């Protein structure tokens, strides 16, 4: 009783329970928090993914699927492997982080969003590279 009474009388010092993080605009999550895998693009709509498929191999449960193609590089005239679609199934992801550790070009990283529930499971399958995006020049495997 003395313990609960103490906390009851001093409840203005801080509640024991924690609030749901409704303050989405101001809340700063820890930078390492694993919310979902994203592929950052720069202002020219360029990403760093070379399509080496190391993330796909590292993934324990087939969450990542890469559809790639060989296209002729206009500068060198050689055929080069380029990604068409980097598909990420969030519904299958266990957030183990092995894909991000495996990526040699830092093309994918963690996003810190924490509200991943949806009404339709098809929306959990995401294409990480934006439409019309290109490989950032200078990124080699």
């Amino acid at each position: 009783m003395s313990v609960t009474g103490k906390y009851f009388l001093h409840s203005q010092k801080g509640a024991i329970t924690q609030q749901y993080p409704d303050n989405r605009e101001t809340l700063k999550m820890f930078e390492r928090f694993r919310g979902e895998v994203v592929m950052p693009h720069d202002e020219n709509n360029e990403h760093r993914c070379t399509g080496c498929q190391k993330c796909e191999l590292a993934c324990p449960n087939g969450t990542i699927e890469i559809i790639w193609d060989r296209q002729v590089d206009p500068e060198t005239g050689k055929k080069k492997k380029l990604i068409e679609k980097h598909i990420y199934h969030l519904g299958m992801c266990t957030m183990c982080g092995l894909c991000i550790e495996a990526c040699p070009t830092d093309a994918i990283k963690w996003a810190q969003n924490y509200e991943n529930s949806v009404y339709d499971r098809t929306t959990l399958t995401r294409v990480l590279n934006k439409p019309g995006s290109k490989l950032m020049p200078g990124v080699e495997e």
Partner: protein
Amino acid sequence: METSTVNNNFKSEEYFINMGPQHPATHGVLRLLLTIDGETIKKVEPDLGYIHRSIEKMCERDSYQQIVHLTDRMDYLSSNINNEAVCLAVENALQIEVPDRVKVIRTIIGELTRIASHNLWWGVMGMDVGALTTYFYAFRDREMINDIFEETCGARLTMNYNIPGGLMFDIHPNFVKRVKEFIAHFKTKLPEYDTLLTNNVIFQKRMRGVGMLSKEDAISYGASGPVGRGSGYSCDVRKLHPYSALDKVTFNEALRTEGDSFARYEVRIQEMWESMSIVEQLIDNIPEGDYKVETNAVIKLPKGEFYQKVETARGELGVYIISTGTKNPYRLKFRSPGFSNLSLLNHIAVGGKIGDLVASMATLDLVIPDIDR
């Protein structure tokens, strides 16, 4: 006179009752088939398999790096220690010596995991015997450990922070500061736990002399962890076969000889103090150095059999790998502490009441995904 005739005419007979699989007091999908006479328990038969995910079979498919994250999902309350077990087994097989920094960080994180796990157990323990308040106090303190894990490992429950050869990334710059804050905070809060629950007369009456387990039975049922130590069976793997940096620290093995529910309760409370002392001894002098040694991208273990055991919050977790020299294990067996501890539930509950069953089951600290795997 009249009442006695009524009693003589009243014939009781045994009947079955299902406790679970969806029952608030079983902490998961555990189904108990109870044979009871009135309210006295005649037999307890656990029925398993409701959360079986064939983790051992999945391990045969995965590479050694990928196996680690599956162990998070066995005993999710001591996930870091489970990760450590697999990593140590693989490292021993490859004969890799990890840097001292890795060993110390692994030990600190393991002990923090133990505190968090016992903390949650304490809250739930109180709730099982009807003291709802404990849950909130336990979660307040556990929240601080979860924040430490979230900042350093990136997740609050299924960390997957250990990899064969070291750690996934170095500790966060705030780690040491936060751990010290937590230890200072928790040292003032743990005595409150005693005031709230341990010294409570009703609670003591519910626990003392209930769920008796002798030392001989504890050994023959394969009990480990706080369940074994509550019966005076010295079985702490950290003491007997120290791993990581546990040989560098001094701590007492929490032992009680009473063998009842209250002894198991006291062991866990003392273990929280001991874990805090281990963390305190290590936190100030984390050695400098690398946080991992580079391993091959494809890890192939030499042909043979490898065994590693660690002390999780629930007891002895054994990882037994049979390798044929390929990149996947031929067979991987987990000796989980929860399974053996569950096996003695029938032994300690028979003759007691249903209310006592719930209380003594809470002191076994079962995590069902650990039992089913």
